[in-house]
């Protein structure tokens, strides 16, 4: 199989972009990634755009062509991918497969979402499009409720505590302080989390990721292209795994373990020849603190049920056993749903390139974990400095 690497990255700051539109954000991230790789439009064979719900957020569909249009591409094949909050990583994987197939030499992958043009309740409804409309949304469930069910069950089965969940958010915020692109660059304490308004028992406001505007873009290229263009510091894609499961939470075999994570990770680990213990840095999908905790268990960083203790014992902080969400994660860096997966990849690429300054971690390999819905889809990617 052809070797493929990330050769350029660029993203907007994450947050409430009152003065920038969807297209402004997409163009900003796209240009930054081209400048980073020192490529021109003619070098890029195709554009993949990960976007969850521009139709509901801004009334705009047909966004792949829109992004190509405003980036000044002419005649370029452009493809939009959607897998709820994993739309970005899905775009990345499709781009990877297209390069491995020999269709292109270099492609651009963007993730973009503009979520603050509508009010919070409408945004919640748009996001619930990722759930099961007939079995979940119809009875009033939204994502905080679904993840609260997972958290309750995890507490029941393994004795996980609200404090341990809170510690996941605390770690994210601590890292976000060191990330200039993050939405919430301030520290919080366990008490802050537990004293924040209760959203869906046992999840408090500070257990939940925010509504965010943002775009992230990466350029992917084949080994031949990289050699021909003499591109320095490529970060190689060593493994890519994708999986799917039931959309409705009630149909799963387990509430406390996500089959999609285990399955996608198994495929990515196998392809890369690596094991969880080889991974020293990972960006995991913490749309809610409980999902971050479940992820570190399902990715194999600790045993099932021991996530709470693993966090409590300081195993996820910067430079520890496995540095989790050095970017600030979804909770503190922000969660512009379609852009999140690409943004996670950018953080790992920057870490492996050694460009993360105050939050820099010494690692040879890095992993990204991106979930759609309450676990109906998942993509795991593993990256390395060497092929």
């Amino acid at each position, binding site marked *: 199989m052809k070797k493929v690497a990330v050769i350029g990255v660029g993203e907007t700051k994450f947050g*409430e972009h*009152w*003065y920038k539109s969807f297209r402004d954000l997409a163009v900003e991230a796209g240009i930054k990634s081209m400048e980073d790789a020192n490529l021109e439009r003619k070098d890029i064979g195709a554009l993949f755009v990960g976007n969850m719900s521009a139709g509901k957020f801004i009334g705009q569909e047909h966004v792949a062509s829109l992004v190509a249009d405003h980036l000044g591409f002419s005649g370029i094949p452009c493809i939009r991918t959607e897998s709820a909050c994993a739309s970005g990583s899905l775009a990345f994987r499709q781009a990877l497969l297209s390069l491995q197939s020999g269709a292109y030499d270099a492609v651009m992958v963007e993730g973009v979402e503009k979520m*603050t043009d509508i*009010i*919070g309740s409408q945004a919640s409804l748009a996001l619930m499009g990722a759930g099961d409309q007939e079995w979940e949304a119809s009875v009033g469930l939204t994502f905080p409720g679904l993840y609260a069910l997972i958290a309750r069950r995890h507490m029941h089965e393994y004795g996980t505590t609200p404090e341990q969940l809170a510690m996941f958010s605390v770690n994210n915020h601590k890292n976000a302080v060191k990330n200039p692109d993050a939405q919430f660059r301030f520290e919080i304490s366990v008490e802050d989390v537990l004293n924040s*308004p209760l959203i869906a028992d046992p999840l408090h406001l500070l257990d939940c990721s925010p509504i965010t505007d943002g775009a992230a873009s990466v350029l992917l290229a084949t080994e031949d292209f990289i050699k021909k263009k003499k591109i320095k510091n490529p970060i190689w894609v060593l493994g890519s795994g994708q999986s799917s499961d039931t959309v409705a939470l009630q149909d799963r075999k387990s509430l406390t373990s996500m089959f999609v994570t285990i399955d996608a990770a198994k495929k990515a680990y196998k392809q890369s020849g690596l094991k969880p213990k080889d991974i020293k840095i990972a960006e995991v999908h913490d749309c809610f603190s409980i999902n971050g905790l479940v992820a570190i268990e399902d990715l194999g960083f600790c045993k099932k049920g021991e996530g709470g203790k693993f966090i409590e014992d300081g195993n996820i902080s910067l430079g520890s056993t496995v540095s989790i969400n050095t970017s600030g994660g979804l909770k503190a860096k922000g969660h512009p749903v379609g852009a999140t997966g690409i943004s996670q990849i950018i953080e790992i690429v920057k870490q492996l390139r050694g460009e993360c300054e105050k939050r820099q971690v010494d690692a040879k390999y890095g992993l990204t974990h991106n979930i759609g819905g309450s676990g109906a889809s998942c993509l795991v990617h593993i990256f390395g400095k060497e092929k």
Partner: protein
Amino acid sequence: MNMLGIVGYGAYIPKYRIKTAEIAKIWGKNPKEIEKGLLIKEKSVPGIDEDTITIAVEAGQNALARSGINPKDIGALFIGSESHPYAVKPSGTVVAEALNINRELRLADMEFACKAGTAAMQIILSMVKAGDIKYGMAIGADTSQGRPGDALEYSAAAGGAAFIIGKDPAAIIEDTYSFTTDTPDFWRREGENYPKHGARFTGEPSYFRHIIQATKGLLNKVGRNIEEYDYVVFHQPNGKFPVKAMKYFKVPKEKYLPGLVVDRIGNCYSGSSPIGLTAVLDIANEGDKILLTSYGSGAGSDSFSIIVTKRLKEIRDKAKKTEYYIERKQYISYGVYTKFRKKLKI
């Protein structure tokens, strides 16, 4: 110096109050969190027979009493409100008759969310300045609406303030400055009972941007630093926003607390910053400089530079002071509140 300004002023706030804790309790919210989040303890509620017209009349009577002028000398009346009782038919005609104002009168109702009152003041000032009228009255009054269960329900209150503008003022209006953009942060469409709002969008790109730009524009226009002002009043949709804006301009507490009334009466919309101004006029001394900046969603801000003259002391005891209305109160339950505000649909 152009010696035109406020010759009479008056406020009115309905006596009924509902505590934010009482509203929070009904909606299953933590009262302490709501109080801490909005910095509002209680809000005024209009009685069942009160509306923007009655509030305007009460405030107008107080302004006339202070001015000592003959109502027949008032040549223009503009009432700014977003809760005029009629969609078609002016509030102002009723108010003018009730106040016995001259029938040779220029009159119109105005609307610009929470800043129609200060917009009315600017128009009256211009007409007086042009020599078209001797005196004019500008009123900002509202019985604002908050949808049950919405964040606005904790703040939407009732009250108003009236200003008579002309020569030989108790407070000179040195200059004004306005900043206006198309920023849809808050709106109510025709036929809808309650307004909608853009949640966090109402903050940074809306309230703060306009308050800051208008205030800076005014300071630049009059060539003063904000430190030269003895009192600063900003629009007060809640307790948090104006305090944050004051911090931005480094205005010390003692200069803004006298005009900050929202924690005790809520947001009186078109009457909000005007009532704050009346509270300051009730205590200011000759030579004191007052900076007032309103904010109306949609969006715009009017900023005023005001200098107190020796006449203020002579007139201010001729009517009930703003503090009287703030402290005159009777608490009601959420049930009575729903009756008064006609939220019960039978």
